[in-house]
C-alpha cells in the first residue's frame, strides 16, 4: 500500500467532489448582470448581434458535448418568441471577443437586451425554462413568450 498515493489520491477525490457539486448547482443558471456593470459593447454588433432584438449569444467550441443541446434550446426559444434572436459563435475563431467578454468555458450564453447591453450570462447548458425566465423581463409586455403545448 502506497501511503503517498493514498493521501494525494484522497485529496484529489475530495476536491473533485466539491468541484462537481458546485458545478452541478451552477450549470445553466443565468446570472443577472447589474445594469451599471457592462455598457453596450461594440464587440457584440461585430459578432452579429442584431440591433433592437433580445439576443441569446452562444459561445461554442469543438470539444464541447453540451453545446449541441444548448443550441437546440436557444434556437427553439428564438423561433417561438417574437423579438428574440439566437446567434452562435465559434469561440476559438473569435478569441478577441472571447477575451473582451471574459468567456472562459463553453457553452456560455450571454443574454443581450434590445439596447445591446449584456443583461445576463449562463455557463453550461441552460434549460428552456431558464432561458425563457431570463428573456421574459427584457421583452415588451405584448411579446411575452408563448408557452408551447408539450
Amino acid at each position, binding site marked *: 500500500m*502506497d501511503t503517498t498515493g*493514498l493521501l*494525494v489520491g484522497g485529496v*484529489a*477525490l475530495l*476536491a473533485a*467532489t466539491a468541484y*462537481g457539486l458546485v458545478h452541478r448547482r451552477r450549470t445553466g443558471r443565468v446570472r443577472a448582470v447589474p445594469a451599471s456593470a457592462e455598457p453596450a459593447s461594440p464587440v457584440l454588433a461585430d459578432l452579429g448581434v442584431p440591433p433592437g432584438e433580445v439576443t441569446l449569444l452562444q459561445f461554442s467550441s469543438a470539444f464541447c458535448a*453540451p*453545446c449541441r443541446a444548448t443550441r437546440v434550446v436557444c434556437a427553439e426559444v428564438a423561433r417561438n418568441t417574437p423579438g428574440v434572436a439566437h446567434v452562435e459563435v465559434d469561440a476559438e475563431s473569435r478569441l478577441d471577443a472571447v477575451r473582451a467578454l471574459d468567456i472562459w468555458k463553453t457553452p456560455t450564453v450571454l443574454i443581450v437586451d434590445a439596447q445591446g447591453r449584456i443583461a445576463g450570462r449562463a455557463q453550461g447548458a441552460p434549460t428552456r425554462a431558464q432561458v425563457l425566465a431570463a428573456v421574459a423581463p427584457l421583452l415588451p409586455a405584448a411579446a411575452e413568450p408563448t408557452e408551447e403545448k408539450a
Partner: protein
Amino acid sequence: MTDPRGPRFAAAVTTVVMVAVLLTGSGLLALAQAAVFALTAAQPRLGPYGLIYRTLLAPRLGKPAELEPLAPVRFAQAVGFVFAAVATLGYLLGSPLTGAIAASFALAAAFLNAAFGLCLGCELFLAYRRLTGRPLAARVPVS
C-alpha cells in the same frame, strides 16, 4: 456520434484503474492506462473500455435518449494521456510523488466525468486557447 453512456462507463473504469495505480504505486499499471488513453484518443471506436461497454452492456440497455459528438471524448482522453504519461515516468524513474500527483489529476478528471458527467473540453479547451492563442497582430513577424 456516440452513446454518451459509453464514455461515462469508460470514465468509471478509468477511475477504478487510477485508484489502483495510486494504491499500488505501479508504474506499469499507469503505463497500461496511458496506452488506453492514447488508443482511445486516436481511435475512439477501438477504446478497450468502450468496447467492453458496447459488447457487454449496451445490448442489455435500451437505446440512448440522445447521441453525443466524439470530439469532446477524444479531447478528454488526450488530457488523460498527458497526466498518465507523466505519472508513468514519475513512478518508473523513481519519483513516486510526481507519479502520485499526476495520477491524481487523471483520477480527478475521470471521476468528475463518471460521477457528474463533467465535460473536460468545456472546462479547459477555451481557457487553454485563450492562454496560448496569440492575437493576430502578434503573428506578424517583427522586422
